[in-house]
């Protein structure tokens, strides 16, 4: 027996049948959506993993370069040399729609097109280790931006997959069986009514015949 009581009427029956139809179609669509999302997600997350490994390694290298730079310069010179950066970076965020998930696409532009503008200091008082360190970080930049894009996309897609999976399960295990049960209940009830009307009519006919003909 279904959890909710329904009126055993033809109106209700046709309403429920329509509902079941919609639910089944919705279930199929959502399942397809989930499968496709999952496929895309797995592709993306693999890329995410590889890229993260690479970026983490590169940052580690860059960091050790900076340590070298720090060792060969005084703290003041180091601080002063990076105090007023020449370059500025801007990110343009656009959206890409993947299976109804809006994932961000980051495009970055630098204030000046000159790639040498990352060196915001005169070369006279700084060691070449600092140049190397800054360069190693600058080389990393495209990967860093890409990582941000992919990792954010993965997070958003994971949330969407979770949501879709819940919906699919709710439809499959609750909504559809419940509606089926209600339809069955109404059909039975209506059939039962039909039969009781039938027998009543037969009975009445018998009684009328008896009255008219005396048998």
């Amino acid at each position, binding site marked *: 027996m279904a959890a909710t009581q329904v009126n055993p009427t033809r109106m209700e029956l046709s309403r429920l049948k329509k509902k079941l139809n919609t639910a089944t179609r919705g279930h199929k669509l959502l399942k397809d959506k989930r499968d496709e999302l999952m496929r895309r997600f797995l592709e993306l997350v693999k890329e995410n993993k590889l890229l993260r490994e690479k970026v983490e390694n590169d940052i580690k290298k860059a960091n050790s370069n900076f340590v070298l730079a720090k060792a060969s310069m005084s703290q003041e010179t180091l601080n002063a040399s990076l105090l007023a*950066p020449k370059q500025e*970076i801007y*990110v343009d*965020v656009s959206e890409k729609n993947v299976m109804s998930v809006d994932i961000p696409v980051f495009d970055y532009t630098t204030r000046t097109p000159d790639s040498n503008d990352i060196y915001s200091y005169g070369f006279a008082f700084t060691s070449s280790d600092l140049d190397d360190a800054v360069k190693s970080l600058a080389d990393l930049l495209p990967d860093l931006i890409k990582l941000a894009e992919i990792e954010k996309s993965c997070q958003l897609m*994971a949330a969407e997959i979770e949501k879709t999976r819940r919906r699919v399960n709710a439809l499959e295990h609750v909504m559809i069986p419940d509606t089926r049960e209600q339809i069955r209940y109404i059909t039975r009830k209506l059939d039962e009514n039909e039969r009781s009307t039938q027998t009543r009519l037969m009975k009445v006919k018998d009684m009328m015949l008896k009255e008219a003909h005396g048998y």
Partner: protein
Amino acid sequence: MYKIAVIGDRDSVYGFSALGMDTYFVKPEEEPAKLFKKLCQSDSYSIIYITEALAAVIEDEIEKYADQKTPAVILIPGTTGNTGQGMAAVKTSVEKAVGSDIFND
């Protein structure tokens, strides 16, 4: 146009300023959550890189922005070494989507 922010201890992030990112130096005991919140709400940053050491302190705050399109909060290793926390974040999203970690290697 959005900008990029980098949060972490001084030694880990000062180099990023050369690339034109905005760097914020903060120590774990100096209320990094407050700064992080301010940066997120200012709506001028689309990407916020944060060192793993610092991210560990304000995990709850970061979690809040996980399902928003911007800012993308990305963990990076600091000078103190790689704690594997950034990779763990990737694993979490796999677990969320698939139900279990299928890239277990």
